[in-house]
Protein backbone atom coordinates (compact mmCIF):
# COMPACT_ATOMS: atom_id res chain seq x y z
CA UNK A 1 0.00 0.00 0.00
CA UNK A 2 1.24 3.46 -0.71
CA UNK A 3 1.83 5.94 2.04
CA UNK A 4 -1.32 7.96 1.81
CA UNK A 5 -1.34 10.74 4.38
CA UNK A 6 -3.15 10.01 7.65
CA UNK A 7 -6.10 12.28 6.92
CA UNK A 8 -6.82 9.99 3.96
CA UNK A 9 -7.34 7.01 6.27
CA UNK A 10 -9.22 4.42 4.21
CA UNK A 11 -10.94 2.99 7.27
CA UNK A 12 -12.81 6.24 7.96
CA UNK A 13 -15.65 6.91 5.51
CA UNK A 14 -15.60 10.54 4.39
CA UNK A 15 -17.75 13.02 2.52
CA UNK A 16 -16.68 16.27 0.87
CA UNK A 17 -18.92 19.21 0.02
CA UNK A 18 -17.64 20.95 -3.12
CA UNK A 19 -18.27 24.64 -3.88
CA UNK A 20 -20.29 25.77 -6.86
CA UNK A 21 -18.19 25.45 -10.00
CA UNK A 22 -16.38 22.36 -8.77
CA UNK A 23 -13.21 23.99 -7.41
CA UNK A 24 -11.95 25.11 -4.04
CA UNK A 25 -10.97 28.60 -5.08
CA UNK A 26 -8.08 28.96 -2.61
CA UNK A 27 -6.33 25.79 -3.74
CA UNK A 28 -6.80 25.38 -7.46
CA UNK A 29 -4.04 23.29 -8.99
CA UNK A 30 -3.12 24.13 -12.59
CA UNK A 31 -2.92 21.28 -15.04
CA UNK A 32 -1.55 21.38 -18.57
CA UNK A 33 -5.01 21.98 -20.07
CA UNK A 34 -6.47 24.11 -17.27
CA UNK A 35 -7.38 23.95 -13.60
CA UNK A 36 -7.66 20.46 -12.12
CA UNK A 37 -10.83 19.36 -10.37
CA UNK A 38 -10.04 18.35 -6.79
CA UNK A 39 -9.47 14.81 -5.56
CA UNK A 40 -12.28 13.78 -3.22
CA UNK A 41 -12.99 10.78 -0.99
CA UNK A 42 -14.40 9.25 -4.19
CA UNK A 43 -11.09 9.90 -6.02
CA UNK A 44 -11.08 11.80 -9.29
CA UNK A 45 -13.89 11.66 -11.81
CA UNK A 46 -16.06 13.34 -14.34
CA UNK A 47 -19.66 13.39 -15.42
CA UNK A 48 -20.07 14.44 -19.01
CA UNK A 49 -23.58 15.26 -20.09
CA UNK A 50 -24.33 16.17 -23.70
CA UNK A 51 -27.17 16.21 -26.18
CA UNK A 52 -27.30 13.47 -28.79
CA UNK A 53 -27.56 14.42 -32.46
CA UNK A 54 -31.20 13.44 -33.25
CA UNK A 55 -31.56 10.01 -34.88
CA UNK A 56 -28.19 8.69 -33.70
CA UNK A 57 -29.48 6.74 -30.66
CA UNK A 58 -29.01 3.23 -32.14
CA UNK A 59 -25.26 3.90 -32.42
CA UNK A 60 -25.01 4.00 -28.65
CA UNK A 61 -26.37 0.48 -28.21
CA UNK A 62 -24.11 -0.85 -30.92
CA UNK A 63 -21.19 0.89 -29.25
CA UNK A 64 -22.03 -0.76 -25.91
CA UNK A 65 -21.76 -4.19 -27.50
CA UNK A 66 -18.45 -3.21 -29.10
CA UNK A 67 -16.96 -2.06 -25.82
CA UNK A 68 -18.10 -5.26 -24.13
CA UNK A 69 -16.30 -7.24 -26.83
CA UNK A 70 -13.19 -5.04 -26.76
CA UNK A 71 -12.73 -5.41 -22.99
CA UNK A 72 -13.41 -9.16 -23.14
CA UNK A 73 -10.81 -9.52 -25.89
CA UNK A 74 -8.21 -7.34 -24.21
CA UNK A 75 -9.04 -6.83 -20.53
CA UNK A 76 -6.35 -4.19 -20.02
CA UNK A 77 -7.41 -2.03 -22.96
CA UNK A 78 -8.59 0.77 -20.65
CA UNK A 79 -5.81 0.36 -18.05
CA UNK A 80 -4.18 3.70 -18.87
CA UNK A 81 -7.24 5.55 -17.66
CA UNK A 82 -6.66 4.21 -14.10
CA UNK A 83 -10.36 3.61 -13.68
CA UNK A 84 -12.52 2.32 -10.90
CA UNK A 85 -15.87 2.45 -12.67
CA UNK A 86 -17.48 3.86 -15.80
CA UNK A 87 -21.20 4.36 -16.28
CA UNK A 88 -22.98 5.30 -19.47
CA UNK A 89 -26.61 6.56 -19.39
CA UNK A 90 -29.16 7.75 -21.88
CA UNK A 91 -32.10 9.88 -20.78
CA UNK A 92 -34.63 12.39 -22.05
CA UNK A 93 -35.18 16.03 -21.17
CA UNK A 94 -38.24 17.63 -22.76
CA UNK A 95 -38.24 15.04 -25.50
CA UNK A 96 -34.54 15.41 -26.42
CA UNK A 97 -32.13 12.56 -25.89
CA UNK A 98 -29.11 13.13 -23.68
CA UNK A 99 -26.06 11.04 -22.92
CA UNK A 100 -24.17 10.85 -19.64
CA UNK A 101 -20.68 9.40 -19.26
CA UNK A 102 -19.57 9.15 -15.66
CA UNK A 103 -16.13 7.94 -14.68
CA UNK A 104 -14.38 7.43 -11.35
CA UNK A 105 -10.63 7.13 -11.62
CA UNK A 106 -7.36 7.59 -9.78
CA UNK A 107 -5.61 10.34 -11.64
CA UNK A 108 -6.77 13.76 -12.64
CA UNK A 109 -7.94 13.56 -16.23
CA UNK A 110 -5.59 16.35 -17.29
CA UNK A 111 -2.50 14.21 -16.69
CA UNK A 112 -3.29 11.51 -19.22
CA UNK A 113 -5.40 13.48 -21.68
CA UNK A 114 -3.42 12.41 -24.74
CA UNK A 115 -3.46 8.78 -23.64
CA UNK A 116 -7.22 9.04 -23.23
CA UNK A 117 -7.58 10.48 -26.73
CA UNK A 118 -5.51 7.56 -28.07
CA UNK A 119 -7.72 5.08 -26.22
CA UNK A 120 -10.84 6.75 -27.52
CA UNK A 121 -9.57 6.07 -31.03
CA UNK A 122 -8.27 2.57 -30.33
CA UNK A 123 -11.39 1.26 -28.60
CA UNK A 124 -13.94 3.03 -30.76
CA UNK A 125 -15.12 5.15 -27.83
CA UNK A 126 -15.25 8.00 -30.31
CA UNK A 127 -18.18 6.34 -32.01
CA UNK A 128 -20.46 7.66 -29.26
CA UNK A 129 -18.81 11.01 -28.77
CA UNK A 130 -19.03 11.74 -32.46
CA UNK A 131 -22.78 11.44 -32.09
CA UNK A 132 -22.91 14.26 -29.57
CA UNK A 133 -23.69 17.83 -30.51
CA UNK A 134 -20.62 20.05 -30.54
CA UNK A 135 -17.96 17.32 -30.42
CA UNK A 136 -14.91 18.63 -32.33
CA UNK A 137 -14.47 16.90 -35.69
CA UNK A 138 -10.66 17.15 -35.50
CA UNK A 139 -10.49 15.65 -31.99
CA UNK A 140 -7.92 13.02 -32.98
CA UNK A 141 -5.27 15.60 -33.80
CA UNK A 142 -6.48 18.37 -31.55
CA UNK A 143 -6.19 17.41 -27.88
CA UNK A 144 -6.96 20.97 -26.69
CA UNK A 145 -10.30 20.94 -28.57
CA UNK A 146 -11.11 17.50 -27.14
CA UNK A 147 -10.37 18.57 -23.58
CA UNK A 148 -12.40 21.75 -24.08
CA UNK A 149 -15.42 19.66 -25.06
CA UNK A 150 -14.95 17.47 -22.00
CA UNK A 151 -14.59 20.49 -19.71
CA UNK A 152 -17.54 22.35 -21.28
CA UNK A 153 -19.81 19.34 -20.78
CA UNK A 154 -18.53 18.20 -17.39
CA UNK A 155 -21.00 18.72 -14.55
CA UNK A 156 -18.84 18.84 -11.43
CA UNK A 157 -20.12 17.21 -8.25
CA UNK A 158 -21.23 19.33 -5.32
CA UNK A 159 -20.86 16.38 -2.93
CA UNK A 160 -18.85 13.18 -3.04
CA UNK A 161 -18.59 10.30 -0.60
CA UNK A 162 -16.22 7.40 -0.17
CA UNK A 163 -16.84 4.35 2.02
CA UNK A 164 -13.09 3.67 1.76
CA UNK A 165 -11.92 7.16 0.84
CA UNK A 166 -8.99 7.97 -1.45
CA UNK A 167 -8.05 4.32 -2.05
CA UNK A 168 -6.80 3.63 -5.57
CA UNK A 169 -7.93 0.73 -7.73
CA UNK A 170 -4.32 -0.45 -7.72
CA UNK A 171 -4.30 -0.62 -3.92
CA UNK A 172 -7.57 -2.52 -3.90
CA UNK A 173 -6.18 -5.01 -6.41
CA UNK A 174 -3.00 -5.39 -4.36
CA UNK A 175 -5.04 -6.05 -1.20
CA UNK A 176 -7.11 -8.70 -2.98
CA UNK A 177 -3.95 -10.30 -4.40
CA UNK A 178 -2.47 -10.37 -0.91
CA UNK A 179 -5.63 -11.98 0.45
CA UNK A 180 -5.50 -14.61 -2.29
CA UNK A 181 -1.80 -15.23 -1.60
CA UNK A 182 -2.47 -15.72 2.11
CA UNK A 183 -5.34 -18.03 1.32
CA UNK A 184 -3.05 -20.01 -0.99
CA UNK A 185 -0.37 -20.08 1.68
CA UNK A 186 -2.83 -21.53 4.20
CA UNK A 187 -3.80 -24.22 1.66
CA UNK A 188 -0.15 -25.12 1.19
CA UNK A 189 0.33 -25.44 4.95
CA UNK A 190 -2.34 -28.18 5.26
Amino acid sequence: MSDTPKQNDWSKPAAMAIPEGGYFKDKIEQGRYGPIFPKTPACYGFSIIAKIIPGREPNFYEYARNIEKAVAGQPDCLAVLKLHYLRWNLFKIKGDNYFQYMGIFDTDFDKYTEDAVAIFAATGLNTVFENLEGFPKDWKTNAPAFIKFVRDHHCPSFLEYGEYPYVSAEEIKKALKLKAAFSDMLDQMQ
Partner: protein
Amino acid sequence: MLEFDDIQYILLTRAPAITGRYEFLSFRNPGAGRAWLSAILETMHSVQQARASIEKDNRWVSVAFTWNGLRALGVDESSLASFPEEFKQGMVARAEILGDTGANHPDNWIGGLASSDLHAIVILFARDAQERQRCEAEHQRLVAQCEGVEVLSSLDLEATPPFEYAHDHFGYRDRMSQPVIEGAGEEPTPGTGAPLKAGEFILGYPDEDGPPANLPQPEILSRNGSYMAYRRLQEHVGKFREFLRQQGRTPEEQELIAAKLMGRWRSGAPLVLSPEKDDPALGADPQRNNDFNYKQMDPHGYAVPLGSHIRRMNPRDTAANMNRRRMIRRGGTYGPPLPEEAPEDGIERGIAAFIICASLIRQFEFAQNVWVNDRNFHELGNERDPVCGNQDGTLEFKIPKRPIRKKITGLPAFTTVRGGAYFFLPGLKALRYLAALGNAG
Protein backbone atom coordinates in the same frame (compact mmCIF):
# COMPACT_ATOMS: atom_id res chain seq x y z
CA MET B 1 12.67 12.49 -46.86
CA LEU B 2 14.04 14.80 -44.17
CA GLU B 3 15.28 18.15 -45.44
CA PHE B 4 18.75 18.00 -43.97
CA ASP B 5 19.78 21.19 -45.74
CA ASP B 6 17.11 23.17 -43.85
CA ILE B 7 16.99 21.62 -40.37
CA GLN B 8 19.27 23.28 -37.79
CA TYR B 9 22.16 20.96 -37.04
CA ILE B 10 21.44 20.77 -33.30
CA LEU B 11 18.27 18.77 -33.87
CA LEU B 12 20.01 15.76 -35.37
CA THR B 13 23.72 16.19 -34.77
CA ARG B 14 25.85 16.37 -31.66
CA ALA B 15 28.87 18.62 -32.02
CA PRO B 16 32.21 17.25 -30.72
CA ALA B 17 32.54 20.16 -28.31
CA ILE B 18 33.85 20.35 -24.76
CA THR B 19 32.81 23.92 -24.23
CA GLY B 20 30.14 26.36 -25.28
CA ARG B 21 28.25 29.50 -24.49
CA TYR B 22 24.61 30.54 -24.46
CA GLU B 23 23.68 34.19 -24.92
CA PHE B 24 20.19 35.44 -24.16
CA LEU B 25 19.08 38.39 -26.24
CA SER B 26 16.46 41.10 -26.33
CA PHE B 27 15.48 43.10 -29.41
CA ARG B 28 14.52 46.71 -28.76
CA ASN B 29 13.25 47.12 -32.30
CA PRO B 30 12.39 44.65 -35.09
CA GLY B 31 14.93 46.02 -37.57
CA ALA B 32 17.81 45.51 -35.14
CA GLY B 33 16.71 41.97 -34.40
CA ARG B 34 16.46 41.14 -38.10
CA ALA B 35 19.86 42.70 -38.85
CA TRP B 36 21.41 40.59 -36.10
CA LEU B 37 19.64 37.50 -37.43
CA SER B 38 20.84 38.12 -41.00
CA ALA B 39 24.43 38.31 -39.80
CA ILE B 40 24.35 35.35 -37.42
CA LEU B 41 22.73 33.21 -40.14
CA GLU B 42 26.07 33.25 -41.95
CA THR B 43 27.63 31.27 -39.13
CA MET B 44 24.93 28.61 -38.81
CA HIS B 45 24.97 24.98 -39.93
CA SER B 46 22.24 22.83 -41.34
CA VAL B 47 22.35 19.12 -40.51
CA GLN B 48 23.82 18.51 -43.95
CA GLN B 49 26.56 21.12 -43.57
CA ALA B 50 27.47 20.02 -40.07
CA ARG B 51 27.73 16.39 -41.11
CA ALA B 52 29.89 17.22 -44.12
CA SER B 53 32.45 19.17 -42.15
CA ILE B 54 32.19 18.00 -38.55
CA GLU B 55 35.84 16.92 -38.44
CA LYS B 56 37.25 20.25 -39.47
CA ASP B 57 34.75 22.67 -37.91
CA ASN B 58 35.53 24.20 -34.56
CA ARG B 59 32.27 25.85 -33.66
CA TRP B 60 28.56 25.29 -34.17
CA VAL B 61 25.80 27.91 -33.79
CA SER B 62 22.04 27.59 -33.26
CA VAL B 63 19.38 30.27 -32.87
CA ALA B 64 15.90 30.09 -31.38
CA PHE B 65 13.19 32.54 -30.33
CA THR B 66 10.59 32.93 -27.64
CA TRP B 67 7.05 33.82 -28.71
CA ASN B 68 7.74 37.39 -27.58
CA GLY B 69 10.88 37.22 -29.67
CA LEU B 70 8.95 36.31 -32.81
CA ARG B 71 6.74 39.33 -32.18
CA ALA B 72 9.80 41.50 -31.57
CA LEU B 73 11.12 40.48 -35.00
CA GLY B 74 7.89 41.64 -36.61
CA VAL B 75 5.91 38.41 -37.08
CA ASP B 76 2.26 39.41 -37.61
CA GLU B 77 -0.53 38.75 -35.14
CA SER B 78 -2.33 36.08 -37.14
CA SER B 79 0.87 34.08 -37.44
CA LEU B 80 1.67 34.56 -33.75
CA ALA B 81 -1.82 33.35 -32.87
CA SER B 82 -1.25 30.11 -34.78
CA PHE B 83 1.42 28.90 -32.32
CA PRO B 84 0.37 26.49 -29.56
CA GLU B 85 -0.99 27.96 -26.35
CA GLU B 86 1.77 26.70 -24.04
CA PHE B 87 4.48 28.24 -26.24
CA LYS B 88 2.59 31.54 -26.36
CA GLN B 89 2.29 31.57 -22.57
CA GLY B 90 5.96 30.73 -22.07
CA MET B 91 7.69 28.71 -19.36
CA VAL B 92 7.18 31.31 -16.62
CA ALA B 93 3.40 31.19 -16.94
CA ARG B 94 3.52 27.38 -16.91
CA ALA B 95 5.60 27.27 -13.71
CA GLU B 96 3.03 25.53 -11.52
CA ILE B 97 2.39 22.87 -14.17
CA LEU B 98 6.13 22.21 -14.45
CA GLY B 99 6.69 22.04 -10.68
CA ASP B 100 8.64 25.30 -10.69
CA THR B 101 7.43 26.39 -7.27
CA GLY B 102 9.20 27.18 -4.00
CA ALA B 103 12.95 27.50 -4.57
CA ASN B 104 12.44 26.69 -8.26
CA HIS B 105 9.94 29.53 -8.80
CA PRO B 106 10.65 31.96 -11.67
CA ASP B 107 10.86 34.79 -9.09
CA ASN B 108 14.20 33.25 -8.12
CA TRP B 109 15.52 32.78 -11.67
CA ILE B 110 18.61 34.60 -12.83
CA GLY B 111 19.95 36.03 -16.07
CA GLY B 112 16.71 37.76 -17.07
CA LEU B 113 15.21 34.43 -18.17
CA ALA B 114 11.91 35.10 -16.42
CA SER B 115 11.55 38.45 -18.19
CA SER B 116 9.19 39.00 -21.09
CA ASP B 117 12.12 40.87 -22.67
CA LEU B 118 13.81 37.54 -23.35
CA HIS B 119 13.53 37.20 -27.12
CA ALA B 120 16.21 34.89 -28.41
CA ILE B 121 18.98 32.51 -27.53
CA VAL B 122 22.13 31.93 -29.51
CA ILE B 123 23.75 28.61 -28.68
CA LEU B 124 27.44 28.16 -29.33
CA PHE B 125 29.28 24.88 -29.01
CA ALA B 126 33.04 25.07 -29.50
CA ARG B 127 35.80 22.51 -29.80
CA ASP B 128 37.95 24.29 -27.20
CA ALA B 129 38.08 27.34 -24.91
CA GLN B 130 40.20 29.35 -27.35
CA GLU B 131 37.61 28.99 -30.09
CA ARG B 132 34.86 29.91 -27.67
CA GLN B 133 36.65 33.10 -26.71
CA ARG B 134 37.16 33.97 -30.37
CA CYS B 135 33.44 33.45 -31.10
CA GLU B 136 32.44 35.38 -28.00
CA ALA B 137 34.47 38.39 -29.13
CA GLU B 138 33.09 38.10 -32.66
CA HIS B 139 29.53 38.02 -31.36
CA GLN B 140 30.24 40.99 -29.12
CA ARG B 141 31.28 42.95 -32.21
CA LEU B 142 28.12 41.89 -34.05
CA VAL B 143 25.85 42.93 -31.17
CA ALA B 144 27.67 46.28 -30.96
CA GLN B 145 26.89 46.86 -34.64
CA CYS B 146 23.17 46.14 -34.15
CA GLU B 147 21.89 49.00 -32.06
CA GLY B 148 18.78 47.84 -30.26
CA VAL B 149 20.03 44.31 -29.64
CA GLU B 150 20.88 43.70 -26.01
CA VAL B 151 22.53 40.71 -24.35
CA LEU B 152 20.48 40.03 -21.21
CA SER B 153 22.86 37.41 -19.89
CA SER B 154 25.14 34.59 -20.92
CA LEU B 155 26.29 31.24 -19.61
CA ASP B 156 29.59 29.52 -20.35
CA LEU B 157 29.54 25.74 -20.63
CA GLU B 158 32.40 23.56 -19.48
CA ALA B 159 32.53 19.81 -19.80
CA THR B 160 33.52 18.20 -16.50
CA PRO B 161 36.66 16.06 -16.49
CA PRO B 162 37.40 13.30 -17.32
CA PHE B 163 36.51 14.31 -20.90
CA GLU B 164 36.40 10.76 -22.30
CA TYR B 165 32.67 10.51 -21.66
CA ALA B 166 29.82 12.94 -20.94
CA HIS B 167 28.69 13.14 -17.35
CA ASP B 168 27.19 15.65 -14.94
CA HIS B 169 28.65 17.20 -11.78
CA PHE B 170 27.27 14.39 -9.64
CA GLY B 171 29.35 12.01 -11.73
CA TYR B 172 26.54 10.25 -13.62
CA ARG B 173 27.32 9.23 -17.19
CA ASP B 174 24.92 10.96 -19.60
CA ARG B 175 23.58 10.56 -23.16
CA MET B 176 22.81 6.86 -23.12
CA SER B 177 19.14 6.86 -23.99
CA GLN B 178 18.32 9.12 -26.92
CA PRO B 179 15.50 8.42 -29.37
CA VAL B 180 16.40 7.74 -32.99
CA ILE B 181 14.47 9.41 -35.80
CA GLU B 182 13.31 7.52 -38.85
CA GLY B 183 15.23 8.65 -41.92
CA ALA B 184 17.89 10.51 -39.94
CA GLY B 185 20.52 7.94 -40.77
CA GLU B 186 21.16 6.60 -37.28
CA GLU B 187 20.81 3.03 -36.08
CA PRO B 188 19.18 2.69 -32.66
CA THR B 189 21.31 0.94 -30.07
CA PRO B 190 19.74 -2.19 -28.53
CA GLY B 191 16.97 -1.23 -26.11
CA THR B 192 16.44 2.23 -27.58
CA GLY B 193 13.32 1.16 -29.48
CA ALA B 194 12.47 1.44 -33.15
CA PRO B 195 13.18 4.75 -34.90
CA LEU B 196 10.38 7.26 -34.37
CA LYS B 197 8.56 9.28 -37.01
CA ALA B 198 10.27 12.60 -37.62
CA GLY B 199 7.11 14.56 -36.77
CA GLU B 200 7.63 13.75 -33.10
CA PHE B 201 10.56 16.16 -33.17
CA ILE B 202 10.46 18.18 -36.39
CA LEU B 203 7.45 20.17 -37.59
CA GLY B 204 6.04 19.42 -41.02
CA TYR B 205 6.45 15.64 -41.05
CA PRO B 206 4.11 12.78 -40.11
CA ASP B 207 4.33 11.83 -36.44
CA GLU B 208 3.49 8.59 -34.63
CA ASP B 209 -0.20 9.46 -34.89
CA GLY B 210 -0.39 10.44 -38.56
CA PRO B 211 0.06 13.44 -40.85
CA PRO B 212 1.07 16.80 -39.41
CA ALA B 213 -1.75 18.94 -38.03
CA ASN B 214 -2.27 22.38 -36.51
CA LEU B 215 1.14 23.71 -37.53
CA PRO B 216 2.00 27.39 -37.00
CA GLN B 217 1.50 29.52 -40.08
CA PRO B 218 2.78 30.39 -42.60
CA GLU B 219 4.21 27.01 -43.50
CA ILE B 220 7.62 28.45 -44.36
CA LEU B 221 7.96 29.58 -40.74
CA SER B 222 7.14 26.25 -39.11
CA ARG B 223 8.54 23.72 -41.59
CA ASN B 224 11.65 21.96 -40.28
CA GLY B 225 11.33 23.80 -36.99
CA SER B 226 10.96 22.44 -33.49
CA TYR B 227 10.38 23.55 -29.90
CA MET B 228 13.02 23.67 -27.21
CA ALA B 229 12.47 23.80 -23.48
CA TYR B 230 15.57 25.28 -21.85
CA ARG B 231 16.38 24.32 -18.26
CA ARG B 232 19.24 25.66 -16.19
CA LEU B 233 19.49 23.21 -13.33
CA GLN B 234 21.92 23.92 -10.51
CA GLU B 235 23.43 20.77 -8.99
CA HIS B 236 24.20 20.92 -5.26
CA VAL B 237 27.19 18.62 -5.36
CA GLY B 238 28.28 19.14 -1.75
CA LYS B 239 24.79 18.37 -0.47
CA PHE B 240 24.53 15.32 -2.72
CA ARG B 241 27.82 13.85 -1.49
CA GLU B 242 26.90 14.59 2.13
CA PHE B 243 23.61 12.76 1.61
CA LEU B 244 25.42 9.72 0.23
CA ARG B 245 27.76 9.72 3.26
CA GLN B 246 24.76 9.86 5.59
CA GLN B 247 22.95 7.03 3.83
CA GLY B 248 25.87 4.66 3.23
CA ARG B 249 28.52 3.56 5.72
CA THR B 250 31.05 2.39 3.13
CA PRO B 251 31.97 3.79 -0.29
CA GLU B 252 30.25 0.73 -1.82
CA GLU B 253 27.01 1.47 0.04
CA GLN B 254 27.22 5.11 -0.99
CA GLU B 255 27.67 4.13 -4.64
CA LEU B 256 24.63 1.89 -4.39
CA ILE B 257 22.49 4.73 -2.99
CA ALA B 258 23.67 7.00 -5.83
CA ALA B 259 22.79 4.23 -8.30
CA LYS B 260 19.33 3.69 -6.78
CA LEU B 261 18.45 7.40 -7.10
CA MET B 262 19.37 7.32 -10.78
CA GLY B 263 18.57 3.74 -11.79
CA ARG B 264 22.10 3.36 -13.17
CA TRP B 265 25.51 3.21 -11.54
CA ARG B 266 27.41 6.42 -12.03
CA SER B 267 29.45 4.55 -14.65
CA GLY B 268 26.23 4.28 -16.67
CA ALA B 269 25.78 0.55 -16.06
CA PRO B 270 22.03 -0.07 -15.70
CA LEU B 271 20.88 -1.56 -12.40
CA VAL B 272 18.49 -3.85 -14.26
CA LEU B 273 21.50 -5.60 -15.85
CA SER B 274 23.93 -5.24 -12.97
CA PRO B 275 21.91 -4.92 -9.77
CA GLU B 276 24.51 -5.87 -7.16
CA LYS B 277 27.73 -4.18 -8.23
CA ASP B 278 29.01 -1.65 -10.72
CA ASP B 279 30.20 -2.80 -14.12
CA PRO B 280 32.00 0.13 -15.82
CA ALA B 281 32.61 -1.88 -19.01
CA LEU B 282 28.86 -2.43 -19.32
CA GLY B 283 28.22 1.27 -18.65
CA ALA B 284 30.57 2.29 -21.44
CA ASP B 285 29.22 -0.16 -24.02
CA PRO B 286 26.43 1.38 -26.12
CA GLN B 287 25.52 -2.05 -27.49
CA ARG B 288 24.59 -3.19 -23.97
CA ASN B 289 24.05 -0.19 -21.67
CA ASN B 290 20.52 0.57 -22.80
CA ASP B 291 19.28 -2.93 -23.54
CA PHE B 292 16.70 -3.60 -20.84
CA ASN B 293 13.03 -3.26 -19.95
CA TYR B 294 11.06 -3.04 -16.72
CA LYS B 295 7.87 -5.05 -17.16
CA GLN B 296 9.61 -8.40 -17.55
CA MET B 297 13.02 -7.72 -16.07
CA ASP B 298 12.23 -5.63 -12.99
CA PRO B 299 8.47 -5.29 -12.42
CA HIS B 300 8.70 -4.55 -8.67
CA GLY B 301 11.70 -2.25 -8.82
CA TYR B 302 14.09 -4.47 -6.87
CA ALA B 303 16.86 -3.36 -9.22
CA VAL B 304 15.64 0.09 -10.36
CA PRO B 305 13.36 1.71 -7.76
CA LEU B 306 9.96 2.65 -9.20
CA GLY B 307 10.61 6.30 -8.41
CA SER B 308 14.20 6.53 -9.66
CA HIS B 309 15.18 9.15 -12.22
CA ILE B 310 15.53 6.93 -15.31
CA ARG B 311 12.36 5.00 -14.55
CA ARG B 312 10.44 8.27 -14.45
CA MET B 313 12.08 9.94 -17.45
CA ASN B 314 11.67 6.89 -19.65
CA PRO B 315 9.30 4.27 -18.22
CA ARG B 316 9.96 2.14 -21.32
CA ASP B 317 7.46 -0.72 -21.47
CA THR B 318 5.57 0.38 -18.34
CA ALA B 319 3.89 3.46 -19.85
CA ALA B 320 1.32 3.81 -22.61
CA ASN B 321 2.04 5.63 -25.86
CA MET B 322 5.75 6.00 -25.12
CA ASN B 323 6.39 6.92 -28.75
CA ARG B 324 4.38 10.10 -28.22
CA ARG B 325 6.41 11.14 -25.18
CA ARG B 326 10.02 10.95 -26.31
CA MET B 327 12.35 13.94 -26.36
CA ILE B 328 15.78 14.85 -27.71
CA ARG B 329 18.21 16.24 -25.16
CA ARG B 330 21.08 18.61 -25.91
CA GLY B 331 23.22 20.85 -23.78
CA GLY B 332 26.05 20.51 -21.32
CA THR B 333 27.39 21.24 -17.89
CA TYR B 334 28.46 24.62 -16.54
CA GLY B 335 30.53 25.76 -13.61
CA PRO B 336 33.78 24.31 -12.24
CA PRO B 337 33.82 20.73 -10.96
CA LEU B 338 33.88 20.36 -7.17
CA PRO B 339 36.95 18.29 -6.20
CA GLU B 340 36.03 14.99 -4.58
CA GLU B 341 36.96 15.79 -0.98
CA ALA B 342 36.21 19.52 -1.09
CA PRO B 343 33.34 21.01 0.89
CA GLU B 344 30.56 22.88 -0.95
CA ASP B 345 32.17 26.10 -2.20
CA GLY B 346 29.05 28.12 -2.96
CA ILE B 347 29.90 28.40 -6.68
CA GLU B 348 27.00 27.62 -8.99
CA ARG B 349 27.44 24.53 -11.18
CA GLY B 350 24.96 22.36 -12.98
CA ILE B 351 23.37 21.35 -16.25
CA ALA B 352 22.05 23.76 -18.90
CA ALA B 353 19.98 21.58 -21.17
CA PHE B 354 17.51 21.75 -24.03
CA ILE B 355 14.63 19.35 -24.39
CA ILE B 356 13.63 19.29 -28.04
CA CYS B 357 10.19 18.08 -29.18
CA ALA B 358 7.35 18.84 -31.58
CA SER B 359 4.82 19.46 -28.81
CA LEU B 360 5.85 21.06 -25.52
CA ILE B 361 2.54 20.23 -23.87
CA ARG B 362 2.44 16.57 -24.95
CA GLN B 363 6.12 15.76 -24.51
CA PHE B 364 8.10 18.10 -22.23
CA GLU B 365 5.25 19.32 -20.01
CA PHE B 366 3.83 15.83 -19.66
CA ALA B 367 7.21 14.52 -18.52
CA GLN B 368 7.62 17.36 -16.01
CA ASN B 369 4.06 17.26 -14.74
CA VAL B 370 3.48 13.52 -14.56
CA TRP B 371 6.76 11.62 -14.65
CA VAL B 372 8.95 14.04 -12.68
CA ASN B 373 6.57 15.71 -10.25
CA ASP B 374 3.50 13.51 -9.77
CA ARG B 375 3.85 12.47 -6.12
CA ASN B 376 1.77 9.40 -6.83
CA PHE B 377 3.62 8.15 -9.93
CA HIS B 378 3.54 4.31 -9.81
CA GLU B 379 1.39 4.58 -6.63
CA LEU B 380 4.42 5.86 -4.73
CA GLY B 381 2.28 8.14 -2.61
CA ASN B 382 4.80 10.73 -1.53
CA GLU B 383 7.70 10.93 -3.96
CA ARG B 384 9.00 13.03 -6.82
CA ASP B 385 11.97 12.53 -9.10
CA PRO B 386 14.93 12.35 -6.68
CA VAL B 387 17.28 14.10 -9.12
CA CYS B 388 15.24 16.80 -10.86
CA GLY B 389 11.83 16.75 -9.15
CA ASN B 390 10.60 19.60 -6.97
CA GLN B 391 11.87 18.52 -3.55
CA ASP B 392 11.06 20.53 -0.45
CA GLY B 393 12.42 18.15 2.19
CA THR B 394 9.03 16.60 2.98
CA LEU B 395 9.07 13.78 0.43
CA GLU B 396 10.43 10.23 0.45
CA PHE B 397 12.39 7.86 -1.72
CA LYS B 398 11.61 4.18 -1.41
CA ILE B 399 14.07 1.47 -2.42
CA PRO B 400 12.35 -1.90 -2.88
CA LYS B 401 14.33 -4.65 -1.19
CA ARG B 402 13.62 -8.11 0.18
CA PRO B 403 12.38 -8.73 2.80
CA ILE B 404 11.71 -5.06 3.70
CA ARG B 405 12.20 -1.97 1.55
CA LYS B 406 14.41 0.94 2.56
CA LYS B 407 12.55 4.20 2.93
CA ILE B 408 14.47 7.47 2.91
CA THR B 409 12.41 10.30 4.41
CA GLY B 410 12.99 14.02 4.07
CA LEU B 411 14.85 13.73 0.78
CA PRO B 412 16.77 16.98 0.17
CA ALA B 413 16.71 18.89 -3.12
CA PHE B 414 19.90 18.05 -5.02
CA THR B 415 19.01 20.44 -7.84
CA THR B 416 17.39 23.87 -8.20
CA VAL B 417 15.92 25.36 -11.38
CA ARG B 418 17.75 28.67 -11.94
CA GLY B 419 16.10 29.57 -15.20
CA GLY B 420 14.27 28.33 -18.24
CA ALA B 421 12.33 29.32 -21.30
CA TYR B 422 10.37 27.97 -24.24
CA PHE B 423 11.99 28.58 -27.60
CA PHE B 424 11.00 27.92 -31.20
CA LEU B 425 13.92 26.59 -33.23
CA PRO B 426 13.14 27.49 -36.85
CA GLY B 427 14.59 25.85 -39.94
CA LEU B 428 17.17 27.86 -41.89
CA LYS B 429 14.67 28.93 -44.59
CA ALA B 430 12.37 30.11 -41.83
CA LEU B 431 15.23 32.11 -40.32
CA ARG B 432 15.83 33.76 -43.70
CA TYR B 433 12.10 34.46 -43.95
CA LEU B 434 12.20 36.09 -40.51
CA ALA B 435 15.30 38.10 -41.37
CA ALA B 436 13.58 39.47 -44.48
CA LEU B 437 10.24 40.28 -42.81
CA GLY B 438 10.57 44.06 -43.03
CA ASN B 439 11.76 44.14 -46.62
CA ALA B 440 8.43 43.63 -48.42
CA GLY B 441 6.71 46.52 -46.63
